[in-house]
């Protein structure tokens, strides 16, 4: 992105960072689903779910840690929005779009965390592959 404007807070939030947390959600869902499907297919429907539950648990922790890193990396920029009490992000400047993208990143991270936690519910509630 060499053509972009230099910003006060250094290297900024890019579109890639905006989609990082939802991507982590997608990978989490795929890993949980594929691991669960393969496990149940190979062990039969009567099998207990413990190994699959471990996989879901560990994947969830890794995913949440990943989202934590994403949030930490945008926190400096985001804090400025909080202190300015400005959530419109409609000023025509590189700095403003930077804060805008960090806001979108943060909220998408929260959404991703919610969706990831939702996905762990079946692993907690269910007991067998039935």
């Amino acid at each position, binding site marked *: 992105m060499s053509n*972009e404007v230099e910003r006060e807070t250094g290297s900024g939030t890019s579109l890639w960072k905006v*989609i990082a947390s939802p991507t982590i*959600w997608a990978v989490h869902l795929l890993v949980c689903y594929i691991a669960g499907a393969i496990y149940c*297919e190979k062990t039969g429907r009567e099998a207990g779910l413990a190994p699959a539950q471990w996989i879901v648990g560990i994947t969830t922790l890794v995913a949440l840690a990943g989202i934590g890193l994403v949030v930490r990396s945008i926190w400096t920029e985001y804090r400025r929005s909080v202190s300015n009490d400005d959530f419109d*992000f*409609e*000023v*025509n400047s590189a700095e403003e*779009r930077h804060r805008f993208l960090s806001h*979108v990143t943060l909220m998408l991270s929260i959404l991703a965390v919610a969706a990831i936690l939702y996905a762990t519910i079946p692993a907690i509630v269910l007991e067998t592959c039935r």
Partner: protein
Amino acid sequence: MSDTQNTTDPMVAPLADEASRKAQEQRLAEAWTSPEGWWYFSDVNNSRVGIWYIVSAFAFLLFGGALALIMRLQLAMPDNDLVSADLYNQLFTLHGTVMMFLFAVPIFEAVAILIMPSMVGARDLPFPRLSAFGFWCFIIGGIFVCGSIFFNVAPSGGWFMYPPLSTEQMGVGADIWLLGLSFIEVASVAAAIELIVGVLKCRAPGMHINLTPLYGWYVLIVGVMILFAFPPLIAGDFLFELERLLDWPFFDASRGGDPLLWQHIFWIFGHPEVYIVFLPSIALLAMIVPTFVGHPIAGYSWIVLSAIGTGFLSFGLWVHHMFTTGLPSLSLGFFSAASEAVVIPTGIQIFVFIATLMQGRVIRTVPMLFALGAIATFIIGGLSGVMVAIVPFDFQAHDSYFVVAHLHYVLIGGVIFPLLAGVTYFYPFVTGKLLSRALGIWSFWLMFAGFNIAFMPMHLTGLMGMPRRVFTYPSNLGWNSLNLVSTIGAFILAAGLLLFIFDTLRPRRNQPEAPANPWRAGTVEWLNDRQNWGLRTIPHISSRYPLWEDADFAQNVRDGRYYLPDAEEGRRETIVTSVLDAQPIQCLRLPLPSYVTTVAAAGLGGVFIFSTFHWWWPTAISGVVAFVAIIYWVWTGTATLPEKERKDIGLGTTVPLYRSGPTAVGWWAMFITMTGDLTAFLTLVFAYFFYWTVAEQFPPPGMTGPGWLWPLIAGLVLIGSWGLTLGARIVNGRGSVWGMRALLALSAVSTLAGTAALLAGPWTTGLDPTQNSYPAIVWALVVWTAVHLAAGFVMQVYCIARSFAGLLTRRFDADIWNVTLYWHAMAFTVLVTCLVIGGFPVVA
């Protein structure tokens, strides 16, 4: 608060005198002259192609609607015999297919092509010929698929074509579906490429990403979704057609295949598809609602993030179409959870609209009526969606009329009503005339009432047990009156729609011109003065609603006081800007009208259509026509050398006329294409491992191919070919023309050798693809890779030829950059293919 002080003041050039302004307009008009007469259909300008596209999509809507009315007539009475069971099967299959593939998706592309360039302040999209090519693919494929019903050979297996029914079915119906729609998917992917690059790289200078109109955001998100949703279906069609044509048993359980694999592939496409058609329509509301409230959208960033969130989550829902297929509860639970989660971002969007409505005084207009009707209807469909997302409820409602009611509330509330709001709203943008208010109100209430009368009872018929897709029912089940009411409602709905269409088509010569910005909107597209060139000048943007916030803005644009007010060299031009901050980085020369796109589309269409009927000679000839046309198009129309290095685009800005590598739009188009291509490839890899998951023993006993040796050789040679291509780009960058030619020649030779080695693996070990799904999927991966390598070979030879023709030089090296990018994707494809087919059997 230093950042607010950074605000750039609107930059305006001094007003030129009237004579030179007239001369500028004259030159612009000449450069943008649209062809007429015999050449009318060679046009590529977005304002004309967009209209063809919209009119065609609405024609297909009416066709699909007529099919639905025949179905409703058949179902009006019990034991009715208006149509036969087989014709009824064709009717519902074609109804679903037409509405989804020939109306809902194309209308998104059509509207976006028509209005988006003006909205982001561009003169046209970056690849006008690609838009035209997509349109021709769409119309040829669409007529082919729809025409089949007049010969009683239309597809009849349901719009999702489940095997084994559809793989075993006689006749060409399923082939028409598979090949016709694969062809139309080409159009969708072409439009996605065009629109993504358009939003990211062609916004007017100063239009930072946080000032981009919300419609642009939605188009970007939906374009990316198409890239990940459509390729799996293309890959699935590839497998399906191989089974029908050559008896490769991908979905045949008796030979190691699995019909469920198709369901996975289809719905990985099919569920995001729902959001692909819904988001662009809701995007229209995001433009319309602020205008009639006279107030900016209440939560711009919330709309953006919830649209991105919806786009993502929509890919985690596909299994909810498969709740009753006997998957483990754990799998169902994951997807039930995701289906509930998607309600969060969808709800945010609705709440933002409501919040916007509460901020100002709503002006009562026809577009607003449709917008409010859309929101109300969509909320009902969304809530019944939450119901069917719950697994135990879905067990009861699955495949019943409850689902029919749900999906129509979603699609008519989420797509049709917002779209008609959009048509009413943008009608003066296109024609300069307003639609009739009275007819608009009448048609809205007819449609809204008719829709609810038709579909609300279906919730009940469904809960009372009426299954989908039955052509008739006995009279003693209690469904009679509900069905009759639905039929009456369907005709009221149709009357409303016809009234609306009549109003758009009736001649209005005597009607006075509407004012230039009839709704007093705040966004740039309303400065388009319906000339071929679009905006008089490409403005410098400094706010989200420049027409509201800068009183002189409109006049300054009309006076040509911003960028590119002129066409000094008589060329069509637009500005390429950087992705985030929209800094001008290039003046992009746009191609002129040409029939080459039509010929290419017709040739490609011939390949798909003739192969449906196994007419191999016409297929081959069409293939050659398409190949020659595409090569001619690319050779004469892309990466053309400019007559000078840089150009002054006004306001003291000078930018290059030619760019290559990651800042060039062509490179982005290749990047996006390869993203979609790799998605299709990974679907095939997924199929391979799916067979491993479900098989008792994998590879099946007695099948030793393709061994590890040939895949290893092929992998090494082809990775070498990739390295040589990359090397050619690097040495060319250092000025060694002959070095580049030599490396390219070497790489072309190793491409051929490596492809032969790849095919030798399954060939020499005697893998028979008709025996079992294992050899079939190995062959499918090998054939897929080989076809791509053939294209890669053509590109390598093309670059050598361009170099000898003097069109590829050290400075002007876009071709070799793009080909190298293609080869990066090839390296990945080859590596994965060889590791999977050669390595995995060793590990397993």
